[in-house]
């Protein structure tokens, strides 16, 4: 076995599906702490009561974008409505549909034959590849460690009223929601639906856009320019692109407008005397919060920039990748190569290039 994926979450799972175009399950080792690729996502989605994906028809784990989830939905619902919605960019699969899809793909792809439970904490460059914490040497390794943890602003960490949006919670009668992204918008709606009075605390006005980043950054059209930016420019661009955002449309606007008119929703500068403070502030950012990546950077003296590991455009780690071996990143830690790396499309991007590297390897 010469190929390994470190990380058994959705990013690793999506990369795995791409590798399966060329490799059999017993040729791929997946190291992770849970054999259910959707375990973390399922927990978080349940905590925040998410019912619908932000992604569209192609927000799935398969290697090719077609047939997408809307097509699958047409067959299941026996209605063309999902396809029509998809053509209009209005289709968003439900969380249940997405989880069913993951389960179905997991079952038929041989994922469980490849998964080896256990945490990999160190990746060492050795002759002929990479040694993974005593689990063997692999010529081609892709790291998809996922988000390093939930982010709670420093001034709120010791506040007993605080709960993170991605942790299980109910709603008090007065709720402050900190944040301005989709999680925050979802929590505004949830809390209002629960009858609470809601205060939104945010550092900036939310950006409204359908997907995590502008659409052209999902294709070579936007990426070609992005990859040409200097390190400083790319850092600035990433900070702009990754600003909190949520989709435009009536889904949120109507409820918020009505609640504001009733005096049940308002914006303030800081958490006030609400009974509950929900931090919809996403995840810790940067490789420094992930021990695996910290060791990798330290031990191999990798180039970094403002918390990101500097990657080649194909999501591989320069200096540790050549014609005979590959070390690649996928998921949120690969944003240097692909701004929307923490999406399923981002995982597909990294997976495809990882597979190209494996295919072109002379000593594969």
């Amino acid at each position, binding site marked *: 076995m010469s190929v390994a994926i470190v990380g058994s979450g959705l990013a690793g799972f999506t990369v795995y599906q*791409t590798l399966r*175009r060329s490799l059999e399950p017993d040729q791929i080792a997946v190291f992770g702490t849970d054999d259910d690729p959707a375990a973390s996502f399922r927990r978080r989605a349940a905590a925040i009561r998410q019912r619908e994906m932000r992604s569209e028809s*192609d927000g799935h784990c398969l*290697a*090719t*974008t*077609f*047939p997408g989830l809307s097509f699958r939905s047409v067959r299941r619902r026996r209605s063309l409505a999902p396809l029509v919605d*998809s*053509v*209009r*960019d209005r289709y968003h699969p439900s969380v249940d549909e997405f989880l069913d899809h993951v389960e179905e793909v997991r079952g038929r792809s041989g994922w469980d034959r490849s998964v080896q439970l256990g945490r990999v904490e160190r990746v060492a460059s050795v002759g002929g590849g990479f040694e993974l914490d005593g689990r063997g040497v692999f010529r081609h390794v892709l790291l998809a460690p996922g988000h390093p943890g939930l982010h709670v602003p420093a001034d709120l960490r010791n506040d007993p009223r605080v709960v993170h949006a991605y942790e299980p919670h109910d709603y008090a009668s007065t709720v402050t929601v900190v944040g301005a992204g989709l999680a925050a918008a979802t929590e505004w709606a949830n809390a209002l639906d629960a009858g609470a009075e809601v205060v939104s605390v945010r550092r900036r006005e939310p950006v409204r856009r359908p997907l995590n980043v*502008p*659409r*052209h950054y*999902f*294709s*070579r*059209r*936007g990426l*070609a320019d992005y990859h040409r930016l200097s390190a400083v420019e790319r850092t600035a661009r990433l900070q702009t692109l990754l600003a909190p955002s949520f989709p435009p449309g009536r889904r949120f606007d109507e409820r918020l407008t009505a609640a504001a008119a009733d005096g049940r929703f308002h914006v303030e500068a800081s958490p006030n005397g609400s009974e509950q403070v929900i931090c919809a502030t996403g995840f810790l950012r940067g490789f420094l919060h992930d021990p695996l990546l910290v060791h990798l950077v330290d031990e191999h003296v990798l180039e970094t920039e403002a918390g990101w590991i500097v990657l080649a455009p194909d999501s591989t780690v320069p200096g540790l990748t050549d014609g005979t071996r590959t070390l690649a990143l996928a998921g949120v830690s690969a944003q240097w190569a692909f701004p929307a790396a923490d999406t399923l*499309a981002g995982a*597909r*991007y990294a997976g*495809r290039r990882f*597979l190209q590297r494996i295919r072109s390897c002379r000593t594969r």
Partner: protein
Amino acid sequence: MSYTLKGRIHSRLAAVLVALVAACVIAAVVREWWPFELVAVMAAVGVALDLAWHRLLPYQPAWSMLPLGAVELGVLMAVVFGFGLRAPLRGALLLFAVAWLAAVVLAQAVFPSLRLGYAEDGGELGRFGGVAAAAIALVLFGAGATAYAQRPPVVHLSAGVHQGPLVITRREVLQGDRGAVVRGGIVVAHDDVEIKDVTVVGGVNGITVDNVHGTVLDGVSVSGAKLDGIHVRLADVVIKNCTVDMLGNELGQGIDISFNMDMGMSMVEGCTILGGMDGITTHSSMTEIVDNQVSHTQQQAISIDEMSMETAKDNEIRDALGVALFCNDRSMCMFEHNTVVGTQSDSADGDRSRRGFGVLASFLSQAELHDNALASNPVPFGAITNSEISREQK
């Protein structure tokens, strides 16, 4: 999808390739070249519009294929009609529909299911894009070269008098040199014959075109025919820039085009006809009669007869005897921007239908008049025997 420019063109060419296959099939069936011409124009228009869309659309949602397709169709048809490509409307629409559907299905389903990262690559198809371009170039070049090689041979008729009748029994261009004269008439007896710059003197008919397709008479000059100057039966024809002298012949027609209703449009344009019983007459025909000068005719200057459906416009008619513009026998006629001057009465024997009509509709016919200049005609216009004339004068 967010296309790169290269991706747009690759995806476009892949769809054109499908249309090209359809064009090959259609061309084989109809045995004409227009499907290839149309695909070539389609590719050129598509790529040109891609350059515009690329700037305007950083992201192109799937639904936009409908309005963009409509725009492309509009531009394509404008080019087809503007440059006079001989593609039938239904065929052109069919071929465009094939190309458009191919583009939709390829971009939305086929490539995204076959190619890892089709969307991610902005529609680029790698080597296949180059192969598609090469295949299209090769097929179109091959078709063009074949069409060029199959052009009819050009036969030069040297200056001087050639004894006729000259019977043309193969596809050819008969090009008359300056001063080339055929005495005794020409008979066109094969499809796709073009006669240019030839003077014909005498003959039963000056030029006879009978039961053939695709005849073009350009710059011919006819005089001294015993019956018709140019006599067309069961044939589609384009006659332009001709001169027909029928002075002294009170029985023949200058140009007579008859019984070709089922063969598409014919055309008479830019001719000068002098004398004859009728100047230009058509029976059961669809002929455009445009920009001609007709004078000194004995019956009608321009006669649209026997269930013909035609337009006569921008013609100048002078000194016709009896009737200038005549719409007869269940015909439907559109007369636009014609000038009719000096028609003379021929009703000395009491025939009231020959009182010198500028325009006459007769026997269940319908004539529409738009902006005609009628002057010095004893009766400017009239309708008899259950016929109608409608006028719209600006």
